[in-house]
């Protein structure tokens, strides 16, 4: 993203709406400027701010008059008065920033917007996590901190070393050199993104091991991490195994996303999910 200096009037509204804090008023040119290294191409500024199309010269003159008279104009805080934002044509590798930051852009690998993952939200249809298994979503950068792929690479390598496989229908998995090493491709390691989710699945018996491993690697990364734990309930709709286990480990989950089981396969060409593909049952 760039800001057209010929249009910008340095009102400062955009400096507050950037989730990464990457926009500032450059004291030399007196215009809003994007720190390209920190910008994750989320388009929050471009998509979230309403736009007026006022004449920049007129607005600058008015602002100078108001400043001279020590008057404060109190405009709406979510408006760019001169529509100064100019999206760029992004190329590789910078384009991965937008893919993992702008939630309106579906991930090509999964066709899902946002972070590009389905998790247990469609478990009633996909059978991704079965009874006796636990699905994990390990998310980096959320909320409002951001992450570089170099930090995600630390986690994926350690998970791979532990013999854990990655969910194939996941955007991060598509960026791995291979499942065995867990290495993320070199050319994107320094790219910064809003957030990304690593998805794995293990047998119930490995739940504690995974949580401890993730907790250990968290100390080595320069961002926040949030763990989601997905389980298949029993016939009565109860989870009498995993939640007590999490509590035993010192977690007291407050919030959950609950799949009601109302989904079903309706595509004429789709087969029933009798034997779902094992996505991360582990090699060891």
């Amino acid at each position, binding site marked *: 993203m760039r800001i057209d200096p010929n249009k910008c009037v340095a009102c400062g509204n955009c400096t507050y709406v950037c989730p990464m804090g990457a926009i500032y008023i450059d004291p030399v040119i007196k215009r809003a400027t994007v720190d390209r290294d920190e910008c994750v191409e989320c388009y929050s500024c471009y998509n979230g701010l309403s*736009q007026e199309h006022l004449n920049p010269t007129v607005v600058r003159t008015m602002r100078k008059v108001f400043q001279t008279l020590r008057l404060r104009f109190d405009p709406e805080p979510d408006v760019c008065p001169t529509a100064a934002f100019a999206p760029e044509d992004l190329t590789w590798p910078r384009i991965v920033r937008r893919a993992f930051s702008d939630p309106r852009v579906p991930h090509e690998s999964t066709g899902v917007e946002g972070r590009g993952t389905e998790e*247990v939200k469609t478990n009633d249809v996909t059978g991704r996590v079965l009874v006796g298994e636990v699905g994990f979503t390990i998310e980096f950068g959320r909320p409002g901190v951001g992450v570089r792929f170099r930090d995600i690479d630390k986690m994926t390598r350690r998970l791979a070393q532990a013999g854990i496989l990655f969910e194939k229908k996941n955007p991060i998995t598509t960026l791995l050199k291979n499942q065995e090493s867990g290495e993320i491709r070199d050319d994107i390691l320094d790219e910064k993104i809003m957030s990304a989710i690593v998805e794995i699945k293990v047998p119930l018996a490995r739940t504690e091991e995974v949580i401890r491993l993730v907790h250990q690697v968290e100390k080595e990364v320069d961002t926040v991490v949030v763990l989601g734990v997905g389980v298949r309930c029993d016939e009565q709709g109860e989870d009498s195994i995993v939640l007590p286990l999490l509590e035993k480990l010192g977690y007291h989950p407050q*919030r959950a996303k609950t799949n009601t089981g109302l989904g079903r396969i309706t595509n004429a060409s789709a087969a029933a999910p009798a034997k779902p593909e094992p996505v991360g049952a582990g090699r060891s």
Partner: protein
Amino acid sequence: MTNTLHRFGNAESFRDDFIVFAIASRGKNDEGALEKQRQFLKMAIPFGPVNLGDARNGGCLRPSKAMNPTNHWNRDVTPDFEAVVNGLQNITTVAAVFDNRLKAEQFLQAVRKVDLGLSINISTSIEGAEQCCHAAGIPRHSVGYSLGFEGKVEKLPNTQVLSLMTMCGHGMVAQSLAKKMIDWVKEGRRTPQQAATYMQRFCSCGVFNPARAVRILEDARHRST
């Protein structure tokens, strides 16, 4: 997308936060899903949602690309639910946000009756979702728990800012905007309702809960933590 899973707060703070959403899985039940998702959104309106949205186009309050300057004094903040329904052009995730459990329960019961075949999820406190499912006579199929934020948590803002900004899990509500809105409410420059609508427009999938935001902003007016 775990957009609504990691909202910050305890179970009590989710008493006015119930998100019911419908999602299709590619290759499994996406044929004809667009019309079903439109039906889902239409069905939600009579139950009184506080927001309605789709993951590509946003919620019931959206930014304007050609705002009239006079709008600084008379901005329309009426939720436009019909625009959300009519604006749905692609299969995506669609969501209805409710500020009390009864509405969410009744909506879930109605969705169950029409049997859309889409995956229907509820995001709220664990107990709240259990109660909704029980009232609708639905045994839960699967649950995704949030274990909370870890790692470099010193990079996170205070709890009030965190509560507001995590209502857009994709991170489109910046912490500096949430902080600014709290400050403006404290200064009396804007009402909590006005401040909530500014943040709501940045949430690009329509799951921001303005009713919960107003409550948090009212609370923040008197406390700073």
